[in-house]
């Protein structure tokens, strides 16, 4: 096998030849680099991806920010005064910086940073007259409509990760953080041979200069006008709150508002300690996105699911009327109250007038696990999007959970009664409530949620819900009657120019009731909405006007 030996020989000779080239032919060159010189890597940051809203409006982009640096050894100090006046800083200040830099005379030091094009103008026109001055451009993150998008888009900050170069920025909050891998891109670099004093000897011979690779742009399904309007309306309330609006035909989220907010620009630009303390210690927690991160009891808006559950599995028929509501229900030595005396009613009226006793009586036909299972298919108890930081799952109680909380036998039918009206252990976030509403509005046909166009739609757990037509139409009729019926809890919304289907909720909480309204319209756009005001009080009284103002402001008064 002479061929085999020949291949071996050829491989070894190849290595030897390359060795000879490096060590003998080019040995002196490499030795000169190695002994007194070394290679400096200068990183060139990659521009981060731009984020736009559904209409192409820019929410965050990069603007050039100019940095003036000086190399002490090459700078003519007689020009100090003139340069200082061109930059627009006091001459003494420049002199002081030059003095401090004399220990490292060959390395550039920053004189002024974060200048815009206008501020840099006078110096850049005269730059050729002064040696040792460098103007660098770095991309800087600029947020538009920042206060309204602070929770969704988030902000960036300097990376503290191992291996990050100096000044590398990374996402810190919101989609900037969770989708950092798409937005960030790859930084590039150039290599210079620098001597022991830091002086640039030459660009490294033959070494690759790697160009930065820009990040990936993203398009949100959010409508900026609607988002801004909603935030403004929520901000007018004295209590914190949140609103979620989605298109139930497409599953696209149009608005994810949470109040109060903060200005992401100040975060990205580097916030002062006092400013940070003010935001982070504010009892209303402006950094917290209530739209998807909060966990509230849903209160009576959950009756939509209870009613659908009872109808879907045939526990009740649409015209079934249980014993009347006398204002409370007595079970095992406990009184389960209703907020009013409703008399005898069917499920449509029970939804419209939000009668508790109706559900106390009927839910006993079903079971805790049945209701829990049904609720989970509406997206409760799970993360719906998974790309928003801190998205809460909420909590759907079932037998297993109740046993672990109270011990087997430590709880009973009373807990099921409480669950049927959205109280007790049950916790949800506003996004989940908007989705629930959208499911009813679409008869269960709503596609998976979408927030970022470039990312595939989220999983839709309701796709195998198979809601019966009669269950949906009965629940929707209840939502219509809540607005237009006799003594409906949302009659204040009957003056809206479009037919509105809704359900109010007043979720009991020790620090004051949460005010909920969920609902949808079919015309002029298929929108589902959920609004909550934290400890706001009565849903019909507090949250309903907000719904009205948001929809009226977005769609016009309907002429």
């Amino acid at each position: 096998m002479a061929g085999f030996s020949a291949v071996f020989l050829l491989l070894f000779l190849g290595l030897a030849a390359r060795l000879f080239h490096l060590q003998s032919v080019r040995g002196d060159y490499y030795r000169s680099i190695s002994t007194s010189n070394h290679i400096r890597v200068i990183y060139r940051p990659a521009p981060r991806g731009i984020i736009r809203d559904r209409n192409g409006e820019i929410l965050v982009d990069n603007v050039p920010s100019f940095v003036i640096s000086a190399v002490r050894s090459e700078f003519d100090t007689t020009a100090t005064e003139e340069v200082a006046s061109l930059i627009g800083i006091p001459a003494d200040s420049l002199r002081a910086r030059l003095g401090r830099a004399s220990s490292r005379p060959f390395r550039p030091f920053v004189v002024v940073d974060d200048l815009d094009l206008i501020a840099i103008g006078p110096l850049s026109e005269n730059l050729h007259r002064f040696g040792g001055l460098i103007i660098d451009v770095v991309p800087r993150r600029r947020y538009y409509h920042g206060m309204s998008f602070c929770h969704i888009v988030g902000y960036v900050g300097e990376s503290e990760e191992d291996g990050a170069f100096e000044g590398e920025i990374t996402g810190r909050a919101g989609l900037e953080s969770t989708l950092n891998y798409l937005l960030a891109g790859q930084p590039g670099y150039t290599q210079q041979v620098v001597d022991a004093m830091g002086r640039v000897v030459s660009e490294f011979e033959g070494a690759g200069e790697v160009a930065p690779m820009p990040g990936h742009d993203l398009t949100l399904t959010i409508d900026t006008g609607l988002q801004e309007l909603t935030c403004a309306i929520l901000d007018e309330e004295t209590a914190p709150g949140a609103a979620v609006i989605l298109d139930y035909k497409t599953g696209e989220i149009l608005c994810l508002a949470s109040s109060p907010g903060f200005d992401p620009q100040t975060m990205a630009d580097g916030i002062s300690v006092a400013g940070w303390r003010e935001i982070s210690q504010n009892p209303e927690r402006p950094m917290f996105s209530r739209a998807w991160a909060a966990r509230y009891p849903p209160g009576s808006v959950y009756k939509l699911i209870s009613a659908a559950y009872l109808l879907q599995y045939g526990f009740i028929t649409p015209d079934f009327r249980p014993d009347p509501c006398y204002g409370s229900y007595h079970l095992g030595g406990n009184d389960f109250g209703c907020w009013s005396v409703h008399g005898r009613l069917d499920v449509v009226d029970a939804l419209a007038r939000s009668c508790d006793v109706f559900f106390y009586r009927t839910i006993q036909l079903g079971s805790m696990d049945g209701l829990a299972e049904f609720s989970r298919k509406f997206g409760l108890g799970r993360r719906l999007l998974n790309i928003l930081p801190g998205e809460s799952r909420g909590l759907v109680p079932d037998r297993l959970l109740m046993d672990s909380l109270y011990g087997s036998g430590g709880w009973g039918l009373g807990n099921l009664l409480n669950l049927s009206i959205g109280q007790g252990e049950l916790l949800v976030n506003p996004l989940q409530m908007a989705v629930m509403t959208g499911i009813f509005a679409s008869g269960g046909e709503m596609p998976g949620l979408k927030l970022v166009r470039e990312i595939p739609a989220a999983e839709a757990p309701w796709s195998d819900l198979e809601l019966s037509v009669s269950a949906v139409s009965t629940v929707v009729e209840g939502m219509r009657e809540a607005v237009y019926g006799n003594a409906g809890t949302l009659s204040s919304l009957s003056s809206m120019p479009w037919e509105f289907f809704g359900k109010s909720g007043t979720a009991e909480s020790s620090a004051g009731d949460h005010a909920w309204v969920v609902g949808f319209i079919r015309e002029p756009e298929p929108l589902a909405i959920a609004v909550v005001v934290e400890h706001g009080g009565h849903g019909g009284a507090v949250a309903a006007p907000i719904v009205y103002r948001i929809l009226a402001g977005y769609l016009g008064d309907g002429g």
Partner: protein
Amino acid sequence: MTTIKTDRVMLAALAVILACGLLAVYSASRAVSGENVFLKQVLWMAVGILVFRLGATLALRLVEDFAYIFLVAICLLLLLTVFFGGGPAGRWLIFGPLHVQPSEFAKIAIIVAAARAFADLKSRPRKYGVLLVFLGASPAILLTWLQPDLGTATAMVIILLMLTWWAGYGPDWIFLVVSPVFAALSSTKLVFWLVFTAVLVIILLRRKASIPVWLFILGGNTLIAVFTPMVWNLLHPYQQTRLTTFLNPAADPHGAGWNVIQSEVAIGSGGIWGQGYLQGAQKGLAFLPARHTDFIFSVWAEETGFAGSLLLLGAFALLAFRLLRAAKVSMSEFGSILAAGCACYFVVHVFINVGMTLGIMPVTGLPLVLVSYGGSQLLSAMFIAGLGMNVARNWREF
């Protein structure tokens, strides 16, 4: 019975390599703070010598009998590592203080199993026999790739291809089989493509191929070479990066190019006689990454220069040629292919690793066997050397 004779030249070559390795690891370890790298390496080497003896004295019949069982066992270990692997690259199985890298041992399994399979094919030829050998080896190779360890998986494929040649299947035949891969790779540079096509033409001329075969092979490969860059350019830059980092995680887009440049500077600055032992400037400046593992050759070449580098490479060449000689004289088919496999193991590793430090091969994270710091690699290389010695000693067997 004839007297068993140890190949003293092979032993000497091995000794020179191990000595250079210890010296280099000691020098490199002085810049590594924390662990006591050198002492550990000495310990591994002591164990390695025992393993070498074991490999050299085992009954070859036994090795042949257990070849397939060994391969299956290694595959299971590799599978475990895919799910429970630890360490910086996730390639280690961690048992308390012991970190085992199964992909290193998988190379032994591949060589031994291939030797047995090819030997069987010699005595009982089968249609598509080569295909069966590759099919049998593919689980181990794929699992190694998934470790993730593309470098080792590639080395396995190359060793297998060389063994196919050794087992009597013409090299041109092998070249034709893998030509689509070469075609795709050659599309990066015109020179590569010209060389590749020239080789293809020579092979086809030699085989006196018919016109349809000419059209099929030359045309097909040209199409691949043309379309590869087009498809590549259709991809987004970030998709390209993802693809390359998926295929080869070691090629970190910031790090890899930078490491090679530093390595070239270190080696080049060694000159003819070197900077002097323990005097390497690049190493001391911490510019050299992974200097006690993957880039150990750079440390050696910087400090001992062209002279020292040639000594080490020469010792490797000598080892490889003595193994090849053992393969030639062995009267047993299994022994012959086994020894050839051992020779290929060393040549492939040396060429890929040293080639990487010299900037002529891609960065793959393959260690310089017998020299780099690392227990798994040292033990498996010593065992393979032992198996080769075994064949050299028992060439009359069977």
